[in-house]
């Protein structure tokens, strides 16, 4: 909602109609003779070579899956193999113009794209760069294997490198491109510009946009291609990616070198089936997928259907579209028509299509018809083409023999190194800035209005007499977050932040107030209301080497980016064999007062997913220190904040919140109040209610409670809790998450296991009810209060003299509720 843009009612209320630009369909009509000006004989033959390379690679895998052998070499491959036999021309055409600075993202069916893009990069890289890539990758492990007995030039060595590295990855070998942790559906090789392929349909639809955002914000060369299937056009995250990529602000609000569209091509590899569902005629209504462009922006995304059965048609389309991207006219949508003869997977009986249909396409096979063109035009003889094919078959035999040899290509040894995967879950980096260059800011930090305002605030909540300053005078939790974030914006030139209402509004809860003044558009902007794209693009941005703070305005909206948070963000560091770093700090705000869809604490959900760090600081001191830690790290962090306490002052840290930079390590719980009779362990803002309970326990029942603030839950060090338990022997755990399946339960179990003999009663969990969150007026019946805590202690841990309960924590009640599922 920039004020600079005036919405004129007179104008927008005028009548008229929308006219769509024409979307060309299969408009390529050049003959091979005409193309001779564009390609040398060698280039024509290279195209043939790359197509046959893919065909043979996929054929090899198909034979292994179906017959258990290829060319007399037997092997059992239990893993997946989603093959693209028939689609080779589409992949080779797509990759033909791309070099290693252009990034492609793919799907579960992307072997062909890996090979096509790999070959294209190899063709274009100079010898020194190519050698360095191969030598440096995993300390030259793969290079050493393929160098043995190699005769020929560097490019042919690199070809071996590409085929072997991909195949070993498909076979889950430690010598594969991703140490065997990616496998067939996730294999990739970033030094050739091949970015992660994705086993979730449409998974690349938003991630690739983030890569394009990275290219733009950091002024990097190259374009990004999102290879997605025709069926993925039904996926919400893909549409969200399209929406994000086509935001008006790139053209209308971003300035200078940053003005203009994202350098991205959404490349629909349209093989006309989504598994067995026929997209045109059955499961979709777009008829021709290129039509989608018309609905997205004024340029109809420069959409076009291209005959993907002719590699030259695809190459031609890319020549034209890449010019558009150079002129910052992206995004582009290409509907590359193709067909796969192989099943969705080897178990596919093709019950959804007729034999005649498959044969009709085979009759027009892209490789055969291209070969006919080459021989007909006198570019290559049949013998030459046969020789190319024979050479490739030898290469496959060679690569397969090596890749299945347990001596040369072992799988990870988890007996010898039982923690080898565990060690890859987090990269545990500590990095000031992801790139070393000056930061783009609008003014020196000390001139920032918010910075000036904070300078006047009281950094400790109480004066020397213990009297608290007024709320507005206190340095608040939101100020702690702001200080850490603004500091990083002035340190790390790659840092960007975005989400809903992040810019002019200053974030819905005023954490970013002042940042709008400090930062140009490309570093802080409003995203569409589209959580999947907010997180998906952040993942792509980080994969390429940037640091990013996406914001989810209410925790409840995490469901909107479930795939991105659960399947993408936590996986890529380990699935890449630690090639990729993921410095993404997702700010998630937990609400209250706004009912069932705006008040949930879902920290337990994300803690359940391996690969995410999860923290929930509740004091200004902790918030600043932990935000600093999150932003210094290279791991994905889900950073929870509570709307109940954005305005809370610092009540614990002596001397107040330091002005200088400091970090608070993840995993260390903090004793907020010492005590000796009972321990209360809290997650999130419930800590303040735990303190109230502690006060009442002390005053009314002579019981001294120790209050421990978990601060982070992944990782978490149980030792301080056990130490406390040794003293108190009793523990209550509390948070605002609803109690069933919450992380508190996990902690209670761990504590029982680790300190059984210290317990004078079972650890007791006091969470929210397993209901919808009711209106604010009824919240005290839903969220834990001090009374709940005291009642639970009385009922389950130690009966308190004279205490009268108001809540039912008896076993009978627990059983009743459980039986009903409430």
């Amino acid at each position, binding site marked *: 909602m920039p004020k600079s843009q005036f919405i004129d009612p007179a104008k927008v209320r005028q009548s008229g109609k929308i006219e769509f630009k024409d979307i060309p369909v299969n408009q390529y009509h050049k003959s091979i003779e005409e193309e001779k000006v564009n390609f040398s004989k060698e280039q024509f033959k290279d195209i043939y070579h790359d197509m046959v390379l893919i065909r043979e690679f996929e054929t090899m895998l198909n034979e292994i899956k179906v017959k258990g052998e290829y060319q007399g070499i037997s092997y059992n491959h239990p893993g997946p193999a989603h093959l693209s036999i028939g689609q080779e021309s589409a992949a080779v055409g797509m990759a033909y113009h791309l070099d290693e600075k252009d990034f492609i993202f793919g799907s579960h069916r992307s072997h062909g794209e890996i090979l096509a893009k790999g070959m294209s990069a190899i063709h274009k890289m100079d010898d020194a760069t190519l050698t360095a890539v191969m030598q440096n990758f995993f300390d030259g492990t793969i290079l050493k294997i393929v160098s043995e007995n190699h005769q020929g030039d560097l490019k042919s060595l690199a070809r071996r490198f590409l085929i072997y590295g991909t195949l070993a990855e498909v076979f889950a070998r430690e010598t594969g491109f991703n140490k065997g942790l990616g496998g067939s559906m996730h294999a990739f090789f970033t030094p050739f510009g091949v970015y992660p392929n994705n086993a979730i349909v449409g998974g690349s639809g938003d991630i690739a946009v983030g890569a394009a955002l990275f290219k733009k914000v950091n002024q990097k060369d190259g374009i990004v291609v999102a290879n997605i299937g025709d069926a993925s056009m039904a996926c919400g995250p893909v549409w969200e990616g399209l929406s994000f990529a086509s935001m008006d602000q790139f053209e209308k609000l971003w300035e200078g070198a940053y003005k203009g569209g994202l350098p991205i091509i959404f490349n629909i590899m349209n093989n006309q089936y989504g598994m067995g569902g026929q997209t045109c005629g059955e499961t979709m209504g777009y008829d021709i997928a290129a039509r989608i462009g018309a609905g997205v922006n004024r340029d109809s995304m420069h959409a076009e259907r291209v005959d993907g059965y002719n590699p030259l048609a695809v190459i031609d389309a890319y020549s034209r579209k890449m010019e558009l991207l150079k002129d910052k006219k992206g995004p582009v949508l290409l509907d590359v028509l193709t067909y796969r003869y192989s099943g969705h997977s080897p178990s596919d009986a093709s019950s959804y299509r007729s034999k005649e249909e498959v044969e009709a396409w085979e009759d027009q096979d892209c490789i055969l018809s291209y070969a006919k063109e080459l021989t007909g035009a006198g570019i290559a003889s049949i013998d030459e083409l046969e020789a190319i094919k024979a050479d490739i078959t030898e290469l496959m035999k060679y690569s397969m023999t090596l890749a299945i040899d347990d001596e040369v290509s072992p799988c990870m040894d988890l007996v010898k190194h039982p923690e080898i995967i565990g060690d890859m879950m987090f990269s545990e980096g500590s990095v000031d800035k992801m790139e070393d260059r000056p930061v783009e800011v609008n003014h020196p930090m000390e001139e920032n209005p918010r910075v000036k305002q904070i300078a006047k605030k009281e950094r400790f909540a109480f004066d020397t007499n213990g009297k608290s300053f*007024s*709320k*507005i005078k206190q340095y608040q939790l939101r100020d702690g977050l702001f200080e850490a974030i603004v500091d990083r914006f002035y340190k790390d030139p790659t840092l960007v932040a975005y989400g809903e209402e992040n810019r002019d509004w200053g974030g819905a*809860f005023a954490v970013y*107030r002042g940042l709008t003044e400090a930062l140009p558009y490309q570093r802080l902007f409003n995203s569409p209301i589209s959580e999947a794209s907010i997180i998906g693009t952040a993942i792509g941005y980080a994969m390429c080497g940037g640091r990013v703070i996406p914001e989810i305005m209410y925790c409840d909206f995490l469901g909107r980016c479930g795939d991105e948070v659960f399947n993408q963000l936590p996986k890529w560091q380990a699935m890449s064999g630690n090639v990729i770093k993921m410095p993404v700090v997702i700010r998630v705000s937990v609400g209250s007062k706004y009912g069932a869809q705006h008040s949930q604490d879902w920290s337990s959900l994300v803690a359940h997913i391996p690969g995410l760090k999860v923290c929930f600081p509740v004091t200004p001191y902790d918030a600043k220190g932990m935000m600093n830690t999150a932003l210094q790290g290279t791991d994905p962090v889900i950073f929870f904040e509570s709307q109940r306490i954005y305005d809370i002052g610092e009540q614990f840290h002596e001397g107040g919140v330091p002005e200088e930079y400091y970090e608070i390590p993840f995993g260390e719980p903090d004793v907020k109040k010492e005590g000796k009779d009972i321990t209360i362990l809290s997650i999130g803002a419930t800590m303040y209610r735990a303190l109230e309970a502690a006060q009442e326990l002390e005053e009314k029942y*002579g019981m001294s409670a120790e209050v421990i603030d978990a601060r982070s839950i992944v990782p978490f060090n149980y030792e301080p809790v056990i130490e406390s338990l040794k003293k108190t022997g009793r523990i209550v755990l509390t948070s605002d998450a609803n109690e069933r399946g919450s992380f508190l339960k996990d902690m209670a179990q761990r504590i029982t296991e680790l300190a059984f003999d210290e317990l*004078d009663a079972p650890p007791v969990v006091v969470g929210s009810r397993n209901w919808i969150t009711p209106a604010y007026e009824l919240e005290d019946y839903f969220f834990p209060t001090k009374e709940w805590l005291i009642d639970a202690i009385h009922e389950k841990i*130690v*009966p308190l003299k004279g205490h009268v309960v108001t809540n039912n924590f008896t076993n009978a009640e627990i059983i009743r509720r459980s039986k009903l599922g409430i």
Partner: protein
Amino acid sequence: MANAIIMPRQGQSVESCIFTDWYKQVGDVIAKGDMLFAYETDKASFEQEAEEDGVLLAVFCEAGDEIPVLQNIGVIGQEGESVDGFNSNSAESTEVEIQVTEVDKQVQEEPVVEIVLKESDSDERVKISPRAKKMAESELVPYASIVGTGPEGRVIVRDIEAYLLSKPKVTPLAKEVMKEEGLTIAEKGSGLAGAVRATDLSANNPVYGNDFEIKRLPNIRKLIAKAMHASLQNSAQLTHHLGADARRLLELRKQVKATEGAPNITINDMVCFALIKALKQFPDANAHFLGDSVKYFSKVHLGLAVDTERGLMVPAIKNADDLSITGLSNQFKEVAESCRQGNVDPELLNSEAASFTVSNLGNYGVEMFTPVINLPQVAILGVNTIVPRPADLGGGVYGFVPYMGLSLTYDHQALDGGMATRFLKQIAIEIENLTIDF
């Protein structure tokens, strides 16, 4: 009529705002809709328009002031109108009072519960918390007969504590004895403040009740216990036994006795003299093993195990290889005596003072034993009694020959078996071929 300008209320939770700036000055003519002033909350900045025409008559705040919402901050009206009464609020402190809830520093103690005992029924399942059970077991509390005050009658820590408070204190020794012997706490003890001492304990089993006495260890016993235990813990000890033909020794002893005025050189003196000769040839045995290194001695500092009333002592004879047999004999008598008197130089008792030790039990008729090494020395020689053993005397004649048993315990960490055997054999050879001047 003049009207107040108030600080607007921005949202439910805002109690006060920071006033940022007046856009007009007192006396300015104001038109409705003119920007009048700016203010901010902790979330955002705002500008306020004038809501009526008039003249700005008075202002009651300036930039930076914190103003509670809905308070008057100025007056707008017609020239000459009075502003009295508008500023009544501003006299108050703008500081919003917030009661600090200081946690009472005087921490009250959790109240102690009353202890109620019951007849314990062996069939009844006892409900007790893990922590209470651990405490009960270590404090010997019969928890099965306590009525628990925890949830569902569970015995919890406070019950055990209450029980212990109701019983007299128990000395640590008494507690140990109770644990070992399965005794229960006496009702009242004979110790200080009624503390129960070991002697106050009553046994459950009358047969075995009082047939022992417990005495504290004297310090030297503790030291010996510690050193001996440490020796076996920290080294790889084993013992070789080998006999030496003692005819020569007995012959020499006879000569000593027969010689008028000769010093009283004992068999032990002679064995030690022979041993010193052997040690000079086996420096590996005359050494200390230090874990990652070995300390070789150029001199022999011979330790001699001496039995005293207070316990075993091992004084060292420094530079024993410089001494004649007479000198050695005198030294032995001297240190043995001072050990028995208790006035030996403590430095000489240190195990590091000696490079090798001899323990002679021959006098007591011991035929074979496995002495314990005085660490860090690498070996110790046990000298046994002399017994007659059948031997081939040559020419098909067999007879009984007096043999002295030698038991060499060595630390296999420092010495190998071959070396140890050769050394032990050398001692025997030296004994068998001993010559002495006296």
